[in-house]
């Protein structure tokens, strides 16, 4: 069954999202100049996650999608994270 109302993202909102993404990109490039030691990966990944979430929520329209789809996407990322963590139970404790 077709949805009666399809949310249409405005050009302005999409442009704003791009501006945010470019800003985050700039930050992540600048941050590489700082010496963060073991936190480098964490910060880089954190910014990448924020960018990814922005793309998913706004460009990919997740903000206006069903709860079901939101749960699926979250579940998928969670599962992947768990697999990495469990693999590291081996590598970190060898």
């Amino acid at each position: 069954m077709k949805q009666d109302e399809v949310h249409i993202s405005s050009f302005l909102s999409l442009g704003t999202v791009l501006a945010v993404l470019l800003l985050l990109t700039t930050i992540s490039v600048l941050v590489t100049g700082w010496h963060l030691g073991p936190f480098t990966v964490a910060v880089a990944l954190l910014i990448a996650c924020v960018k990814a979430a922005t793309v998913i929520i706004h460009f990919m329209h997740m903000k206006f999608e069903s709860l079901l789809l939101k749960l699926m996407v979250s579940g998928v990322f969670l599962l992947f994270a768990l697999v990495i963590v469990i693999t590291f139970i081996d590598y970190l404790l060898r």
Partner: protein
Amino acid sequence: MAVQINHTEHTDSETGKLGMWIFLFTELFLFGGLFLVYAVFRAKYSADFHTGAAELNAFIGTLNTVFLLVSSMTIAMSLTAIQKNKKNLALFLITVTIILAALFMMNKYFEWSHKFHYKLYPGSEVMRNLPHGEILFFGLYYMMTGLHAVHVLIGMILLSVTLFKVKTGKVSSSHFLLLENSALYWHLVDLIWIFIFPLLYLIT
């Protein structure tokens, strides 16, 4: 009350979109395997990964990131355009997306051929004489950006087909599933690069 079947129904848009999202999940896990390998070896060889990353051109990497981010915006805008029945604007935006993708591929070509020129590719004499962590870093670089580039190409083909169908009116303000799904695929290509970029290019 029972529903009489009258005719074969086309797949409705919610169904088609759900199918596309599930396909995207499979792509995430496909690249995920490479990210897992990256994580393991980054943890083991952090210094070598740092050295290896210095060989990469962060400027080109950043430029490519910008290309993909802008192209994500343009394809998202093309969907808005189609939904508002602005066919020519949609055609323009899809075309810009494809051009940005082509620019990305051009950069990739320059990056790779630059490295090939210095004999820095998997299996080469130069590669084999590098420290282990660097060998693995470059192996990951080639495999991750290579697989990603294959997906950029597939995306370009998909977008070209969509462009054609918008032109002929098969994709319109009342039937835009193909554009929606192509856009989702394109955003995935962007998403993967969002992670590849800092992990390969921006290691301090």
